[in-house]
């Protein structure tokens, strides 16, 4: 039986994963196999790349304050947006939620002591660091100017920038993704605690399972594609070079076969986060659990079938274009199902406006805009006009920043008490969430208009009549930056000075909330046995919700 009494709620537990010493200080971190410590290693590294990408974005926005752009030369401008994309997509967005929150939470959520392959988990992080080093080397020795999409033959033949180290770095980094995905899939299959059946899994776990499927199936393809680009560059081969009989469109197919599913790698985990936050702060079971779980899998599967919607203007046959357009509309349906289910969860719920909830609600709104504009782009006739304009840029930033990053920051805020044992200042964090939301919309909404009016993307200049909108966008970017800096500041502050959180401050229903904050190294003092359904606020007296509280509304309307 349990012989370590749980820590009382106003004190941190005596030993937990952060202060457990099994070796000297820094070595015990760099050689750890504890999934929680590895998650924090990732937290530090992805934040570094977020900064780098952010600095590059700042330079882009400052340059675009004037129509003729006086900050950098055209060649440098090409490097700015390329490196911004590479840093943000491969080294921030794709790892962020899975490698930080997924690594930390999945064993806790399923009642396991660690992931299935803890050493492989550590290896994943080192592979990420190695890949990142190659890319940083590339940034530092001439940069990259091919666009993050590395279209050939610019990337494979003509570019004079440091393409080869960059593609090597991204190739290596791909294995970090693959091994993380592999670890999650096997863990969820074989390491669940007694009573944790598939349909009792939290939706965060389902989301990561679906994400992992995409990671393991898609990432090898971009690995081999970038390898071919590198080989072509070094040995002057001709797979993608028309002068030697190769086909640049083949590159695009191979590239987008991964890179489209990659966007689902970025959004599915964020959706998982939202699926955890909404029921908690509506204090209601989530509406349509099975449909949300199933829609995650559906998005993963259908997401592999739509890649050529990035290639409508390359001359692909009308029939192919029609098929991909149709499938792109189809893939929106499971996403829409999630949005409806989240909203239905809110209906007649007991809403509280804690900071994670603000992020989650912001996610829903911004994701709807981003997703809908994706459908506009998937419409063949419309795409002819808005392809390669700022409309596309606005669309994917709504999804990736308004969606995925808000999910990430919201998730950090939701699980921060579990990770650190501390709470953060409530009013300040609510204000920061609002600042982020406002800054984000001011930055990117004008870009929809710019794109629709015809401003091309990846251009260092623009016609003078677009200046007002560009200035608005840059102003928004400065507010957005503040919205990110504030949490970085107060979350760091809270690690030492924040109020002690206790086991379950919100309270929430997941298994991770039934152990100490921060958790012990072995996660649970006693292996839990699960006998309750997920998000079941009614039948969980252990949550300490006030006795005699208003009965919770049933999940399915007025019964």
């Amino acid at each position, binding site marked *: 039986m349990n012989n370590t009494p749980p820590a009382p709620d106003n004190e941190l537990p005596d030993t937990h994963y952060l202060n457990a010493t099994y070796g000297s200080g820094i070595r015990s971190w760099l050689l750890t196999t504890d999934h929680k410590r590895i998650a924090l290693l990732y937290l530090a590294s992805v934040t570094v790349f977020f900064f780098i990408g952010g600095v590059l974005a700042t330079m882009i926005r400052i340059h675009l304050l004037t129509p003729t752009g006086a900050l950098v030369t055209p060649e440098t401008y090409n490097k700015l947006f390329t490196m911004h994309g590479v840093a943000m997509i491969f080294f921030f967005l794709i790892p962020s939620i899975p490698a930080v929150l997924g690594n930390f939470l999945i*064993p806790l959520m399923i009642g*396991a*002591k*660690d*992931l*299935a*392959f*803890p050493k*492989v988990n550590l290896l994943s992080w080192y592979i990420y660091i190695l890949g990142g080093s190659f890319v940083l080397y590339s940034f530092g020795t001439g940069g990259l100017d091919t666009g993050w999409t590395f279209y050939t033959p610019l990337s494979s033949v003509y570019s004079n920038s440091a393409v080869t180290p960059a593609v090597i770095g991204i190739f290596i980094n791909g294995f970090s993704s*693959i091994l993380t995905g*592999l*670890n999650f*899939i*096997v863990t969820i*299959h*074989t*390491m669940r605690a007694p009573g944790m059946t598939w349909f009792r899994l939290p939706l965060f776990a389902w989301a990561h399972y679906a994400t992992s499927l995409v990671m*393991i*199936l*898609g*990432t*090898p*393809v971009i*690995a*081999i*594609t970038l390898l*071919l680009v590198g*080989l072509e560059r070094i*040995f*002057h*081969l*001709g*797979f993608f070079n028309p002068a*030697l*009989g*190769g*086909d640049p469109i*083949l590159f695009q197919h*191979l590239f987008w076969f991964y890179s489209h599913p990659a966007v689902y790698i970025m959004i599915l985990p964020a959706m998982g986060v939202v699926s955890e936050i909404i029921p908690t702060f509506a204090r209601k079971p989530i509406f349509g659990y099975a449909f949300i779980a199933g829609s995650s899998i559906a998005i993963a599967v259908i997401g592999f079938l739509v890649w050529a919607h990035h290639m409508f203007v390359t001359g692909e046959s009308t029939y192919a274009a029609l098929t991909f357009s149709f499938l792109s509309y189809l893939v929106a349906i499971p996403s829409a199902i999630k949005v409806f289910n989240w909203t239905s969860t809110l209906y007649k719920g007991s809403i509280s406006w804690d900071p994670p909830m603000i992020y989650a609600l912001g996610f829903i709104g911004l994701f709807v805009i981003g997703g809908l504009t994706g459908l506009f782009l998937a419409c063949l006739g419309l795409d002819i006009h808005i392809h390669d304009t700022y409309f596309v840029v606005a669309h994917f930033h709504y999804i990736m920043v308004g969606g995925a990053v808000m999910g990430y920051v919201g998730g950090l805020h939701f699980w921060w008490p579990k990770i650190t044992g501390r709470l953060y200042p409530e009013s300040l964090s609510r204000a920061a969430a609002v600042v982020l939301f406002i800054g984000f919309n001011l930055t990117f909404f004008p870009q929809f208009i710019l794109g629709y009016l015809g401003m091309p993307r990846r251009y260092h200049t623009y016609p003078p009549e677009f200046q007002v909108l560009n200035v608005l966008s840059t102003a928004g970017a400065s507010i957005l930056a503040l919205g990110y800096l504030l949490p970085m500041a107060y979350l760091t502050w809270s690690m030492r000075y924040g109020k002690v959180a206790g086991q379950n401050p919100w309270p929430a229903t997941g298994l991770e909330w039934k152990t100490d904050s921060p958790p012990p190294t*072995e996660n649970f003092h006693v*292996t839990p046995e699960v006998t309750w359904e997920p998000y079941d606020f009614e039948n969980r007296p252990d949550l300490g919700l006030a006795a005699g509280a208003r009965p919770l509304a049933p999940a399915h309307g007025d019964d």
Partner: protein
Amino acid sequence: MHRTGDLYGHFQTLEQQKETAALGMWIFLVTEVLFFGGLFLTYTINRHTFSTAFGIGSNTLDIKLGAGNTVVLIMSSLTMAMAVWSAQVGKKKLVSIFLIATLALGTVFLGVKAIEYKQKFDHHLVPGLSFDMKYHPTHPMPGDDLTELALEKEEVDKAFAQDPDINAHGQLYFSLYFGMTGLHALHMIIGAGLLIWLIRGSFRGRFTPQYNTPVEIVGLYWHFVDIVWIYLFPLLYLIDRHR
């Protein structure tokens, strides 16, 4: 210190540990299928577009060596499976014998591949290194059959007439040849390393009916590498040979 066959701390039972290891290897092999798949796709598309050049390329490969290698690799999969079986029934000595046999056959395969690569190098068929598909018929090596070479020269001349860029397209074929067989050979070398590790373990009597997971999962990996070759051989050596 963790000892062989012990339960790792985060597992509940040995059964769970074994199941986890096997599932992990299967999923890893799925990723490998996708990894090689990109190359296979590129090859297939290019073969369709440049069938003449690819046909000639196929003809420069030595079918006897290729077929021989295929048999060698299939036999190595047999010995590997026998090693797994031996571990499962507790015949520890046989485990070592079969693992060594697998390693030996794998080494034979790699040796033959090295010979083939050297041949390509001699015949100026390595992309980027003074590649020239016409070189061999016009520069016989000692021991070559001159009448066969004359026929080859005739075919190559015809093909050059049909497809003026045939050297460029031929380079594509050989890029893919070296890329695919090279990647395969790299996986075999890694497999050989894993086998050496297993052999050392088997000498120490590590693998018993209760605990033989490493043999099983390396076996899975080895079989996968075999299957990749079984696809590579017809694609590279056999298709369009008669043209």
